[in-house]
């Protein structure tokens, strides 16, 4: 069994890793949908 502190750092690492890749991807998707909206304007 891991200690609560280990579990907390493991969760932080997981969240950090997903944010590292998720934030640029979210930016890319935001710009993509701005472009896609042109089809409906």
């Amino acid at each position, binding site marked *: 069994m891991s200690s609560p502190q280990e579990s907390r750092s493991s969760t932080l690492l997981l969240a950090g*890793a997903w944010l590292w890749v998720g934030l640029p991807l979210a930016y890319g998707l935001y710009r993509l949908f701005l472009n896609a909206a042109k089809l409906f304007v």
Partner: protein
Amino acid sequence: MGFLARERQVAPPGWNRWLVPPAALAIHLSIGQAYAWSVFKTPLEKSLGITGTQSALPFQLGIVMLGLSAAVLGTTVERRGPRWAMLMSLIAFCSGLLISAAGVWAGQYWVVVLGYGLVGGIGLGIGYISPVSTLIKWFPDRPGMATGIAIMGFGGGALIASPWSTSMLTAFGATTSGIGKAFLVHGIAYAVFMSVGVLLIRLPSREFTAEKVALLKDKPKANVGFNVSANNAIKTPQFWLLWVVLCFNVTAGIGILEKAAPMLVDFFKESSTPVAATAATGFVALLSAANMAGRFVWSSTSDIVGRKNIYRLYLGVGALLYLVLLTAGSTSTPLFVIAAMVILSFYGAGFATVPAYLRDLFGTYQVGAIHGRLLTAWSVAGVLGPLIVNAIADAGKKAGHVGPDLYATSFYIMISLLVVGFVANELIRPVDPKFHEPEAAGETGKPSPKPDDEATVAKWNEAEAAESADKEDAEGVVKK
């Protein structure tokens, strides 16, 4: 080298397997920048005084090098492990960008071709296959979903790079100095971004091997009880049938992707609701979204319905949708857009599902290397698809065709290719046991004496020993 030794890449106890997909994404989101190369084309043409064909060469060489390096270096990538592969990808890809910066500053076009195309292209190939077998080992219960996430990242890379590079060129200026600065910033930023993948990637541990048995308990079909080496895999008809499936599925997708914007305008030119050129750029963006979403959604679905069935969908329904475009595409814009989006989702999904299909057919032992060799199908399709569509559209224009007629012949060819791909998929049967490796530790679903990776390392050592003995025999140094 300690940090890169395969043993040092094995996860410590308690390592969360959900850290592996972001590691893979850090690499794929970066190398996916290649698909945003077009942003640099016009500025390079103006500042270096080169033609459109010349400015496309760094990208084209990069894609050729992707296929070649994945095929040639696949077994080395498997042997050295994902951390080594990701670091090599980082070095090659980012060096390519830095060499290009120097090339632009010096006004030397060929330095950009060699930097981005040759050196960077090797980084693309190693990076593309680097996380595949590791993801499959960590997610034996959902290999389609796992590889779908990574390969979705390759599509996503262009979505990030395209607006980012455009903003940078606007800020620095589209001169040789500005383009050079943009390449320099790209090289440094991607090195930092990819390094997180290098640090995070881990191979499954002994502890995970026990966990794997529990994961596969309710999914007996997800278990593969044999392994086939990369050298043996290419001797099987299954490999070449899958090569045809991938090649034709990709060619069919490129058929739309290559000419998406003018195609939409041409289809509705004569109708009561013509489509403006700005709206057509929105259509291209929607296709990119469908391409990316398909990689994750359909590949994950393949874990439930099976790999053969999902390719029946990509190829069979893909062919029917092309027929819909041909017969009714010009009657309704929403119908045209939706059909094209679904075709593009199948195109992306074909890439994303193929590693899991290979794992089902050949096991996990050298799946990354086999995947690398299969990617030559992509290189062929990358030439075949645009060639068919552009040549036929140009010939149609010369013959005085307008509107949907410009694309009818190429659509018929795409349908035929998809049907051939469908038949090839139908012909795929389990691999003949004579190609199986003698032992498949850790893959039988029973508790294994060695965890996955120790078994793989042991196999590699045996293979290397046998290979060097053969070499010595051939050279007459050692007689068996």
